[in-house]
């Protein structure tokens, strides 16, 4: 492991920290809405990782107004991919929230532990 | 029958086309694009017209009987209002600073309710936002000429009631 490299790449380290905290929220909190927020944080960490992969030191944003070979541009491919990813993540969030509303109508709670208890009493 | 229907459609269209809002939207469009060529202006005009037609009845109601785009007296009133507002702002900031720096914290927070004599909704909203912008007071609720203000001290509450009754806003009513 190269320690100076890790210090230089603090964007990736931040992305990993977001990923871990999001995973922690999803694992330990019994509330379903909190789990959805944790899932969104994990999504954001992936976006942060990809966009920082595409960054080039001293580059401009990829809008070519007057083309010349000297100007350096940021890599546009990760930006395009992450644009797709954001929309898909919002779709998944919306569907998860619809399921949560449905679960609340069925069980009267959105706490996973209480739902498990109700299910075990039913059987 | 058919002619009646057409006339009705014409009436609705004429009520919904709002030249002043279209002009303001065109200005916004020019600011956004930063271009002044004919193609851009045509597209902007088309979009502004379409938006005004679509949102028609839900925009600000037109004020009756004014030929000019902006009444000259309105500009003067706006400047006078801003001048008074700045004076009030400095006073209120000094008062709140004195309260915060005082180690005894002499706060008597409470709600004040009073009625406004303003007819137009936009003037009431202007007053409510001015109260919120002033440090120490906060407008909590506003409906139908009735306003509820949260004030930090008793003096500021009295000030707010005075400010609400003053004549600057009534000048806005007249213009």
């Amino acid at each position, binding site marked *: *492991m190269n320690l100076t490299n890790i210090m230089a790449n603090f964007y990736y380290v931040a992305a990993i920290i977001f990923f871990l905290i999001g995973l922690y929220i999803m694992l330990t909190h019994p509330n379903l809405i909190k789990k959805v927020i944790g899932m969104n944080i994990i999504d954001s960490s992936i976006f942060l990782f990809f966009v920082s992969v595409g960054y080039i030191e001293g580059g401009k944003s*990829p809008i070519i107004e007057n083309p010349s070979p000297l100007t350096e541009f940021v890599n546009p491919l990760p930006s*395009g991919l992450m644009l797709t990813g954001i929309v898909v993540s919002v779709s*998944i969030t919306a569907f998860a929230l*619809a399921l949560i509303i449905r679960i609340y*109508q069925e069980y009267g709670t959105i706490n996973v532990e209480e739902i498990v208890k109700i299910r075990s009493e039913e059987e | 029958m058919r002619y009646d229907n057409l006339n009705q459609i014409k009436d609705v269209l004429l009520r919904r086309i709002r030249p002043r809002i279209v002009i303001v939207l065109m200005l916004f469009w020019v600011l956004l694009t930063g271009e002044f060529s004919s193609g851009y202006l045509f597209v902007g005009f088309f979009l502004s017209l379409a938006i005004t037609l679509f949102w028609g009845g839900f925009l600000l109601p037109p004020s009756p009987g004014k030929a000019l785009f902006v009444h000259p007296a309105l500009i003067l009133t706006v400047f006078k209002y801003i001048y008074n507002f700045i004076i009030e702002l400095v006073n209120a900031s000094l008062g709140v600073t004195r309260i915060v720096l005082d180690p005894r914290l002499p706060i008597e927070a409470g709600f004040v309710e009073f009625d406004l004599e303003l007819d137009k909704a936009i003037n009431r909203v202007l007053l409510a936002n001015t109260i919120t912008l002033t440090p120490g007071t906060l407008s909590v609720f506003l409906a139908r000429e009735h306003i509820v203000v949260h004030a930090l001290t008793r003096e500021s509450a009295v000030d707010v009631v005075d400010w609400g009754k003053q004549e600057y806003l009534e000048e806005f009513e007249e213009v």
Partner: protein
Amino acid sequence: MKKNIVAMIMLLIIGLGLMSVVGEMPTFGERRFFSEEEMYDRYLQQGPEETGSINIVSAIITDYRAFDTLGETTVLFATVAAIYGTLLAAINKDGDD
């Protein structure tokens, strides 16, 4: 509480693994990253002539990778359909009872 500690230990292991990957990655902000030099040059040099759009990101998502975006609109459509199904099923069931 025991669950939290187990989760913490697991996350620590995952984090150490990911950190070791970061240690091997190229430095942030380098010009040539992975093996994508050809795509980068192609998009930035021939993008405006080939697509007519000077905003390269929108050129990528709606011209070079337009099929990808078509799939994405399908995802949006499927989401709306699934939400309607989930919530309308509840309303219909309530009506039957």
